[in-house]
């Protein structure tokens, strides 16, 4: 039985604005699920509905076999960690961590044991007598996590917990979160707009856009087999290069270049002969052994690799990521090609009945 079962979840605000459409997800016991997407895609709203902080307009939420759709937050056996930590400034770290258990009127010694165990896991033992203002951002976030851990909830909910931290600290906290997940074997729902966090932390990623789930899968699946143009461009840094063109006579023909297809690709695209499709190629899958002329506009050396920005046919700007140190100058022309194994084809995005453009589905 899944630990969390979300079926046909909708969120419609009073004004009629729909934030989440038909969200379905089964989360297994101990699974780390990351909800990722741009701002306003409905990921935080979904999390808040699971937490009970937002009413569920339609659908059902089952946690460990119990229907929690209409239950108040306190009865759902979940713990939430917020981006802004939400610590009580006048309490010590110990009191902050013990707070929820104190409210439940738990035995003092039991509270102490739980707080000390959480402090040990999070390396906060020496900070317990301090006030939140005396701690760094990373330490405060660990306290917020500790407050969740002591409750031993069925599900942990994290709402962009690392967004307030600087890049270096975010990296170390990411690693700590992975270790914490392993130690606790906890079921976690984690919201972020940072795809690096999503790719590194998740057992499975739920990629959302405009209230709709675009794809659910393992990080590698979203990276290697994106379900549509949205996921293809959202996951991966720099984003995937997209080219519009037609399939004609075993070639991908765009106004800027023609590119031969492998027999396998021809077979996959056989139903789209003469149709407009989108070709997607990740910057790291651009090679320097092709026949397409790229006019270099910028060369960014990042140490272990180089990002080369350039134009094809004087129009289309693309990014290439070469796994070595390159010294191209603006105005240089280089020949590029694409790794055939890593070329992605999508249908052309079509507008829905409301005129909103839907992402083009992957052709496989």
């Amino acid at each position, binding site marked *: 039985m899944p630990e969390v079962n979300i079926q046909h979840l909708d969120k419609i605000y009073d004004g009629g604005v729909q934030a989440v459409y038909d969200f379905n997800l089964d989360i297994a016991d101990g699974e780390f699920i990351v909800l990722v997407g741009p701002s306003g895609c409905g990921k935080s709203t979904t999390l808040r509905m699971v937490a009970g902080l937002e009413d569920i307009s339609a659908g059902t939420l089952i946690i460990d076999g119990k229907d929690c759709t209409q239950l108040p937050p306190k009865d759902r056996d979940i713990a939430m960690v917020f981006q802004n930590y939400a610590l009580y400034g006048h309490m*010590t770290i*110990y009191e902050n961590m013990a707070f929820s258990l104190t409210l439940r*009127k*738990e*035995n*003092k*010694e*039991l509270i*102490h*044991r739980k*707080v*000390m*165990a959480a402090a*040990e896991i999070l390396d906060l033992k020496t900070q*317990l*007598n301090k006030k939140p203002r005396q701690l760094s951002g990373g330490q405060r976030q660990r306290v917020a996590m500790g407050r969740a851990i002591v409750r031993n909830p069925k599900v942990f909910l994290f709402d962009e917990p690392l967004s307030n931290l600087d890049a270096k600290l975010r990296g170390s906290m990411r690693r700590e979160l992975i270790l914490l997940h392993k130690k606790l074997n906890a079921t976690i729902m984690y919201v972020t707009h940072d795809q690096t966090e999503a790719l590194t932390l998740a057992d499975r990623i739920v990629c959302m856009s405009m209230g709709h789930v675009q794809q659910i899968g393992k990080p590698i699946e979203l990276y290697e087999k994106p379900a549509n143009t949205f996921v293809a461009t959202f996951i991966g840094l720099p984003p995937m290069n997209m080219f519009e063109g037609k399939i004609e006579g075993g070639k991908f023909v765009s106004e800027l270049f023609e590119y031969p297809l492998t027999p396998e690709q021809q077979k996959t695209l056989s139903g789209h002969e003469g149709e407009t499709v989108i070709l997607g190629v990740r910057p790291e899958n651009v090679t320097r052994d092709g026949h397409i002329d790229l006019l270099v506009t910028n060369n960014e050396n990042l140490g272990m690799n180089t990002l080369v920005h350039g134009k094809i046919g004087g129009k289309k700007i693309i990014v290439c990521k070469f796994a070595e140190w390159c010294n191209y100058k603006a105005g240089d022309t280089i020949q590029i090609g694409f790794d055939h194994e890593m070329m992605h084809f999508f249908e052309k995005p079509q507008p829905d009945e409301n005129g909103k453009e839907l992402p083009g589905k992957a052709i496989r």
Partner: protein
Amino acid sequence: MKDATSNPIISSDIMRYKKNKLGANLALGAIAFDCLSFMFLYSVVGTSYYSTWAIAFDVIFNLVFLLITFLLSEQVKNYNSKLVILQIIFGVCQIGRIFWLPLGGLLTKPAAIDIGKFLVMAISLGASGVLEIASAVIGYIRSKQVAEFNKKVESGEVDIMETVKQLDAEDAAKAHATPEVAVNEQEEVQ
């Protein structure tokens, strides 16, 4: 889980992270009772029995008592036992004050205060003194406990995390054992 048995190591360790609220609140109680006593005393200062100098001294003593006791309550809260003697002196003084202005006013002819007011003042001052002394005693005992426990922790004689793990393991064992015991009992009945 609310009926977890008391463990001396855990209960001592709790003190390292919790303030001595009982000790501090007793000291604050002493302040409250002192206020009650001088409210009644100063309502009768117009009578000729109480000289200006006596009232002036009493006012100054009250001010000093209120300030020092408040500061001492903060010391007690943080398990600092250095000024316990001062607290006890103040406590004794409070009790001694019953026999000065209140009792003097009652015994003078004609009586400056009635028996009712005297009793309220005597009880207030007495309670203030007792609470001050109790705060000092509790503060001293607990501060010594914390200091001794800290020494044990620092010397490695006591390992908190080991104790926590041990207790968690015991609880887990109990939780697992309970259904089996129930099954065994059922079998015996059958």
